[in-house]
């Protein structure tokens, strides 16, 4: 079998799961029904998420890049995840660090952090894509052909951070099946391995981010009840706190710190921190101009330094418990994830907070990647009995619109199960107002200015009329990746205007496309090749799914005519796949989509009926008859989604 695999020239693409961490990244896959981490030629599992740009334009990633960090502090990016989806003025750019940033010249540019590396300007998305490319090639070395990918993100990542991660995947040439929340991934791996049911908390403190998730494990269903966290809180902050002290002890003035020394102090701090996990006192040496200086730190000193950092996790945990409507003693266990949970003080704190010793019998650094691999296996349809497993996740941060006076009107509250949708009706507040200004924000604060701004747009061309008469309907939809799309409709006087917005964090789709082109050696030509491959992969997936369905659900076809139309479209698509024109393949995929639409609906109804079979037959029939698309549903729900159920909507 193994031999056959190695020599098979047309290897089937295999799904993989990636944990794109702040400090370390891993790639895993499922082998013989069990998730395993893929190792490099040195049997290393972790790839340090460090990227170095050398003077000749080459990119070095991982351990080798890490070695260059001290000598090239500006050109070596560590912890890039802390900058994902962040604006140029983000507080992270002002914390202790070694980078140079590009001064934004336009408001557009200011929407994303840009590193100044020699004469280049590099975005966090590009840096992350370099890490992903290395993971991809690691996976390709073992599997030869990589199919769909699940990439994990901190549960507390906002829309911009998620979108940035997905773009990085695209830039690295990956087919991103899904973004999966890290704690949920960990719970999936843990739950399947330990075969446990119950209510659990996942406490994930990594290098750069903190997440806490409360979820119910019930025979393969992983239902997230609530999530909380801080996407800028982790081991890096412990390193910084200790490095500040080291620099102080060395007598380095705050206003004059060479970047090399800062990097060295941060690295030394991390080594000391790791040492203190094992022993009570650690000595270290640090090279400064004028010789080597010896330093010593005790565990008690270190604990005092990190106390405020660790206590911040407690705030998030208490809120998550409150949001889930449970108390700590109702939990069946607390699962520890992330390298920073190795710190003894963190363990003690968690034990005290939840009133029970945490579970740490799985490797806290691997468990997220293992969960991602399982999810990829499920989504790719290769997992056996995949239908027994279901992940029900939530939106981490409320989504809303800015209304009068800069106040936020929440459209979808945090911890709503995703996918989710809601619609709100607004009206004009001035006579003869001809435009609506829409500002979409994310966060819990009352004022828009304190929330994360996701997108702004103007709906124009409203016919002049008295205040309060125009009706604007705004629809929010959050998909299973936790990504938002917004549609706005102006419905007065029968004129229907639709504006669709995808929130952006500074990189437009075109920019990503341009980056993709630039990254390929032969630009245009390679892009075409890639598009062809992508179109084929998608088309083959559709052909396979349709053929499978034709075997299972042929009885739901309405007569021979429908069957004939589908057969014809199938044949057409298969012929196109053998050709080399991406546009034709895509066109015929759409044709097949079209002719199978009605039948697909009937099949879904059957799936619903089966899901609740034997429970209440008449009720099921009702469900099936009434189940319709969300558009119809939302249209009828217009204005009823306000949190307080106020059907009149709020003036904007």
């Amino acid at each position, binding site marked *: 079998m193994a031999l056959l695999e190695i020599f098979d020239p047309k290897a089937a693409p295999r799904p993989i799961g990636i944990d794109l961490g702040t400090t370390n990244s891993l790639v895993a896959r499922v082998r013989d029904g069990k998730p395993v981490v893929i190792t490099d030629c040195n049997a290393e599992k972790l790839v340090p998420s460090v990227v170095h740009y050398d003077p000749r334009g080459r990119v070095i990633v991982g351990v080798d890049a890490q070695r260059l960090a001290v000598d090239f502090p500006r050109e070596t990016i560590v912890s890039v995840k802390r900058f994902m989806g962040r604006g140029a003025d983000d507080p992270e750019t002002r914390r202790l660090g070694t980078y140079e940033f590009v001064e934004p010249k336009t408001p557009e540019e200011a929407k994303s952090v840009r590193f100044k590396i020699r004469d280049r300007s590099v975005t966090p998305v590009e840096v992350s894509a370099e890490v992903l490319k290395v993971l991809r090639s690691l996976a390709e070395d073992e599997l030869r052909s990589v199919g769909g990918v699940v990439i994990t993100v901190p549960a507390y990542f906002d829309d911009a951070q998620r979108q940035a991660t997905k773009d990085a995947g695209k830039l690295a040439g990956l087919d991103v099946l899904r973004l999966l929340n890290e704690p949920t991934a960990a719970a999936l791996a843990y739950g399947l391995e330990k075969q446990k049911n119950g209510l659990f908390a996942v406490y994930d403190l990594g290098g750069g981010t903190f997440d806490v998730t409360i979820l119910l494990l019930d025979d393969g269903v992983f239902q997230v009840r609530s999530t909380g966290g801080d996407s800028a809180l982790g081991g890096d902050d412990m390193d910084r706190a200790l490095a500040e002290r080291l620099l102080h002890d060395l007598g380095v003035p705050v206003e004059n710190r060479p970047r090399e020394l800062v990097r060295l102090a941060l690295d030394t701090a991390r080594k000391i921190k790791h040492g203190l996990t094992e022993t009570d006192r650690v000595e270290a040496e640090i090279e400064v101009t004028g010789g080597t200086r010896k330093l010593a730190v005790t565990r008690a000193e270190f604990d005092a330094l990190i106390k405020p950092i660790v206590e911040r996790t407690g705030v998030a945990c208490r809120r998550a418990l409150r949001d889930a409507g449970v108390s700590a003693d109702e939990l069946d266990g607390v699962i520890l994830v992330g390298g920073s949970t190795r710190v003894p003080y963190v363990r003690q704190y968690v034990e005290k907070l939840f009133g029970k010793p945490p579970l740490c019998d799985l490797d806290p650094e691997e468990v997220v990647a293992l969960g991602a691999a399982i999810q990829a296996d499920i989504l790719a349809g290769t997992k056996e009995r995949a239908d027994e497993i279901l992940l029900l996740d939530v939106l981490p941060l409320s989504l809303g619109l800015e209304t009068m006076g800069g106040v936020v009107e929440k459209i979808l509250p945090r911890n*709503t199960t995703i996918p989710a949708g809601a619609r709100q009706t607004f009206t004009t507040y001035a006579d003869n107002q001809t435009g609506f200004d829409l500002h979409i924000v994310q966060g819990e604060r009352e004022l828009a200015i304190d929330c994360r701004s996701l997108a702004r747009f103007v709906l124009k061309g409203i016919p002049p009329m008295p205040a309060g008469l125009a009706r604007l309907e705004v629809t929010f939809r959050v998909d299973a990746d936790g990504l938002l799309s917004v549609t706005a409709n102006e419905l007065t006087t029968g004129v229907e205007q639709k504006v669709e917005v995808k929130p952006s964090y500074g990189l437009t789709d075109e920019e990503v496309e341009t980056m993709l082109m630039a990254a390929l050696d032969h630009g245009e030509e390679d892009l075409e090749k890639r598009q062809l491959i992508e179109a084929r992969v998608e088309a083959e997936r559709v052909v396979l799914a349709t053929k499978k369905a034709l075997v299972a659900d042929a009885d739901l076809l309405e007569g021979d005519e429908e069957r004939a139309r589908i057969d014809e479209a199938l044949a057409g698509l298969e012929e196109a796949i053998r050709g080399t024109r991406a546009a034709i393949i895509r066109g015929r995929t759409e044709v097949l989509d079209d002719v199978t639409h009605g039948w697909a609906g009937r099949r879904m109804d059957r799936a*619903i009926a089966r899901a*609740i079979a034997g429970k*209440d037959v008449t009720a099921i029939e009702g469900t099936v008859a009434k189940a319709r698309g969300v558009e119809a*549903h939302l249209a009828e729900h217009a204005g009823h989604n306000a949190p307080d*159920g*106020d059907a009149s909507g709020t003036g904007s």
Partner: protein
Amino acid sequence: MIDPFQTLGVEARFDLDPDDLARRHRDLSRALHPDRYAGAPAAERRLSLSRAIEVNDAFRVLKDPIRRAEALLRRAGVPVGETAEPKPSPDLLMEMMERREELGDARRRKDLDAVRALAEAIRGREREVLASMGRQFAASDPDATKLAVVLPELGELRYLRRFLDEASAIEEELSS
């Protein structure tokens, strides 16, 4: 309008068993969740997304007693929403004002225990109102004029809910 009871395939009543409801939501999610359709044609993926959103929304409505009551009333053709409902009684307004003042005082004193005690008292009251509403819904015919008797209690529930939201925000503020 689409009926959340119908979407979830459960009986249209106020006193639904929360476990049954959760089970039904889960069964439907197993069949509809976009994860089940990851490899499916684009049209099917869109359909699954729409339906999963619909099922999640219905579950969200039915889990929440206020929105569940609204859904029942709407089914019967009773207009709901604060502007459509009768004005709350002066007694209730007065009482809520007093409670909120107490809450504000506790907040100023940074007295977390007092905030919790106030919230607990209101939660007790909420339970009573819910039980009474359950009885009213069960007793009345699904006829618009008769169902309207629950409206004052629904209004009260909204006030209690707002109070509890405020209390939990203060609790969060004081405990961090």
